[in-house]
């Protein structure tokens, strides 16, 4: 019964396709055939023990081969399950803003003759706008992940100023930060140029700055600093917000993972931003890291090769 439950829970496949069950059945058949041949040999041969021993040896070899086959099957089933889960999460994440869009517009069109007051109309239009942005962000994230995984992104490196790029991205986010009274302080000392992919680093910076603002409390600061170490230039982004709980640290770069405390605080996010950052830094063969204390601060940093 527990085997049946494990098969359903772990692989979501019927019992006859479950690796452990098949392995168990194989073991039973081998044990039974060994006994059968022993009985048979005892009746018709002078040394039945020798026959049984040979059968047992062959059976052991078969069992080892079967074990290897089942393990690889297990791996396939696991991959399949991860894929199913991924499709399930993606479809849920895409459907949610779509449903909100559809229902909000249906509500507006149904009540258009009832002379809805302007405030209510604005509220619903804002909901439509927010959900369109949410969906656009999710689609953008999924597209960049697919292109990175399929190696369809231009990974050419060139010389550029990380400081100028960071200043540009900060400007993009000034209005968003202003809404929550979050001040972004960027170190303005001159730093050497780096040799990397500007397009991809822009995506990393956007994700990290967006997160830093989103998880910051009102009237707080986000600090961006540079540090040269050997032939590398590091950039760190620090916020003084919710922080990352200890038990979430290991999983923070996983696809669709969101720490419990940000879910509790109802901070919106796709759960893909940090996964994309990690994927990009792996693609560029550079490092990304973080330090954090829950309820105090979080610092994300990455380093690039100096030109």
């Amino acid at each position: 019964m527990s085997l049946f439950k494990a098969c359903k829970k772990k692989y979501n496949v019927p019992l006859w396709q479950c690796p452990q069950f098949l392995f168990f059945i194989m073991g039973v058949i081998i044990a039974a055939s060994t006994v059968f041949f022993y009985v048979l040999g005892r009746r018709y041969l002078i040394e039945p023990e020798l026959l049984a021993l040979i059968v047992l040896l062959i059976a052991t070899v078969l069992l080892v081969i079967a074990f290897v086959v089942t393990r690889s099957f297990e791996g396939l089933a696991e991959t399949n399950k991860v894929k199913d889960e991924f499709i399930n999460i993606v479809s849920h994440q895409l459907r949610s803003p779509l449903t909100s869009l559809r229902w909000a517009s249906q509500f507006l069109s149904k009540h258009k003759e009832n002379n809805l007051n302007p405030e209510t109309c604005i509220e619903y239009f804002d909901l439509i706008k927010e959900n369109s942005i949410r969906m656009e962000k999710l689609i953008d994230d999924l597209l960049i992940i697919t292109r990175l995984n399929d190696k369809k992104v231009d990974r050419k490196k060139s010389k550029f100023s990380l400081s100028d790029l960071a200043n540009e991205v900060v400007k993009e986010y000034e209005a968003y930060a202003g809404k929550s009274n979050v001040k972004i302080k960027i170190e303005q000392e001159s730093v050497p140029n780096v040799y990397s992919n500007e397009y991809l680093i822009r995506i990393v910076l956007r994700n990290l700055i967006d997160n830093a603002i989103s998880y910051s409390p009102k009237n707080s600061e986000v600090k961006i600093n540079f540090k040269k170490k050997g032939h590398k230039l590091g950039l760190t982004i620090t916020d003084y917000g919710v922080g990352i709980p200890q038990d979430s640290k290991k999983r923070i770069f996983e696809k669709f993972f969101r720490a419990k405390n940000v879910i509790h605080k109802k901070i919106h996010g796709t759960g893909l931003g940090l996964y994309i950052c990690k994927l990009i830094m792996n693609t560029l063969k550079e490092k990304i890291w973080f330090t954090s204390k829950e309820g105090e601060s979080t610092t994300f940093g990455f380093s690039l090769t100096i030109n």
Partner: protein
Amino acid sequence: MKKILFIEDDIAIQKTLGEGLKSKGYDVVTAGDGEEGLKLSKEVTPDLVILDLILPKLHGLKVLEKMREDELTADTPVIILTNLENIVEVEQALELGATTYLVKANYSLEEVLIKIENSLESQL
């Protein structure tokens, strides 16, 4: 007036369906997370609970499980309204005694309102 507890964290869904139900004459109480929803299910003793599954603080299935454990809410009809279409969740929800399992994306706002109305009428 029939009382409906609507446990949903998506503001847009909460507003549109909530307003739709109010316009049909129901008394609607809303909760934005699982813990608040569970607490309200005991405080307001609703005639019907509309429950999302992916919720902050407490998953929808946990809310349903805890409701079933409590004498006060053990028999309260619950409609699951979610965008999760996984057979595992559907089976778990129905095993825990959910009245209906609705996938939001498969219905228009009006269709969901009709389904909720029908569910409340069938209790009479």
